[in-house]
């Protein structure tokens, strides 16, 4: 178990170095020149050059990267070009809201997705099934921007149930979590449906039925536990999906998370922040998969951590 964890963390560290390297290359070859951007258009070429030197942007690529990596190991993510503050500080301030939103969205998507998926699988081909799959498809394919604005318009402006964006109370959380969760719910309901259909056709379900136990028990105890296995693995992958979804949803709802931060940083070519957010997102994805790994053995005894 501990060896497994250590191995996983080792992999994660390697992955992070890889991610940082690739991001660094991408930003390096970007045509936008942060020094020129910082200097403003009133600056003379000499001023731009001074700033470039100060930021170390005149150094060769490998030197810049190694310096970044060296700082990273010491927990220093660098300073934001535009905000002139520690990246770690900015990211740390933005992380809790994103984690909260993500947790809420996972609850939403699992509640909606799994329920719909199971119910649809119990009556494949029925009206409910067809309807649910169409709704899921819409959920999956509606752009989150449009979906979010629509939610705000209906539930905040028209019905006045929730505030229009912002952060702080549970009522602020509901709409962004639902918007973010609905996309996932679409995936999960489709996945749960096919997983459930698959499980319901397995031999052990027949065995359970033949024991004469109630059908609800067959479905809820025997089928569900098995059908949920692929879903657990999905939650790990989902974290990545959330990170990209968060960029849009956080912007629409004014949710002060790292998605919003990333969006702003990209527009301003604030490389240290982009790097910081990318690394945090990578860590989140690694952790998500690790958690899925750790949870899976509790649901499926065939998986044993060594």
């Amino acid at each position, binding site marked *: 178990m501990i060896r497994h964890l250590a191995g996983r963390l080792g992999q994660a560290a390697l992955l992070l170095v890889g991610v940082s390297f690739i991001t660094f290359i991408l930003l390096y070859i970007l045509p936008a020149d942060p020094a020129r951007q910082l200097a403003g258009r009133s600056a003379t070429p000499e001023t731009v050059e001074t700033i470039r030197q100060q930021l170390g942007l005149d150094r060769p690529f490998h030197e810049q990267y190694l310096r970044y990596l060296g700082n990273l190991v010491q927990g220093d993510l660098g300073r934001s070009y535009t905000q002139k503050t520690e990246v770690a500080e900015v990211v740390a301030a933005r992380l809790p809201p994103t984690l909260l939103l993500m947790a809420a969205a996972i609850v939403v998507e699992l509640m909606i997705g799994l329920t719909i998926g199971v119910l649809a699988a119990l009556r494949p081909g029925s009206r409910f099934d067809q309807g649910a799959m169409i709704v899921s498809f819409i959920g999956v394919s509606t752009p989150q921007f449009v979906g979010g604005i629509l939610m705000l318009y209906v539930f905040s402006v028209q019905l006045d149930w929730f505030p229009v964006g912002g952060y702080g109370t549970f009522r602020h959380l509901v709409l962004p979590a639902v918007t973010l969760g609905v996309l996932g719910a679409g995936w999960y309901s489709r996945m749960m449906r096919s997983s459930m259909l698959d499980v319901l056709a*397995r*031999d*052990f379900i*027949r*065995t*359970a*039925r*033949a*024991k*004469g*136990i*109630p*059908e609800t*028990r067959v479905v809820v105890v*025997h089928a569900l*536990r*098995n059908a949920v*296995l692929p879903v657990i693995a999905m939650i790990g992958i989902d974290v990545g999906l959330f990170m990209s979804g968060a960029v849009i949803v956080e912007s629409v709802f004014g949710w002060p998370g790292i998605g919003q931060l990333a969006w702003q940083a990209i527009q301003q070519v604030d490389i240290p922040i982009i790097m910081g957010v990318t690394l945090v997102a990578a860590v989140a994805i690694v952790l998500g998969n690790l958690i899925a790994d750790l949870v899976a053995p509790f*649901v*499926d*005894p*065939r998986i044993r951590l060594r």
Partner: protein
Amino acid sequence: MNSELPIFRVDDLAISFGGGTRRARVVDGVSFHVGRGETLGIVGESGCGKSVTVMSSVGLQPSPPSHVDGGSARLGDVDLLRLPPKALRRLWGSRIGVVFQDPMTSLNPVFTIGMQLREALAAHTNLTDAEREARIMAMLARVGINAPERRLRQYPHELSGGLRQRVLIAMALICGPELLIADEPTTALDVTLQAQILALLRDLRDEMGMGILFVTHDLGVVAQFCDRVAVMYAGRIVESARVDALFRAPRHPYTHALLASTPRLDSDRSVPLPTIDGMVPPPGARGAGCSFAARCSRAQPICLATAPALVAGQDGAFACHHPVPVP
């Protein structure tokens, strides 16, 4: 071994699959019965409808896609085909036990053996925990599982195939059913294991006195394990007889050909194995005549025109216009 008072009796069972224009009759006019302590083998090649027949007769065949079009299946004086689902479920696991083909997939992988056994018992009895555990231990010991306490805590994947099939047998028999449905219970096992499991089932049958409905494609197993046998072809029973009579003198040309084409240890390999040419007609394409006529070496024009009825003979019954003569 008396069959005067059948505990389970199926009459004129008809089953179809699919809906609308694609609906096709897959089992037609099938009748059989099993007595207390008796084993009836239902034998046939894949697609002949043997499993569907047996599973439908006890209500375990999922519907849709299958539909029972007619007939009855009486356990004692209850017609299973007319029971509401709840009442049917009370019989499953208590008066009817089922053992399926593949022990590797027939146990739920995420629950312990103990949980799956307890569940079977708890569904039909009101025993105290201690009584229940005692009964489970006894049953496991009876099916030849050593160290049952340890096994109860294990998960299916930690057990070998043979052990799993023993667990499934224990599960099917734990409430002492009158009827055991065994659907190809040894097909997925190696020969040495097959022999063990068959021996176990035989002992349990003799001890507990239940009737067994044994579905298989293996004539050797039928010969060694069953009292009577019904041979199915294309959704119908073409011949049924006491086992010794059937193997000694098969009357239906299909039974005859099937026996002949089975490789045996004492066969002479210098002579080509007899074969049955052609293919089984698919459901929906079965005409008015005998379904086997197209492949039958003894077929006459009448065979293509009218389906022969199942006629009782000396040692059994067969459905053929031109039966194989008794040697």
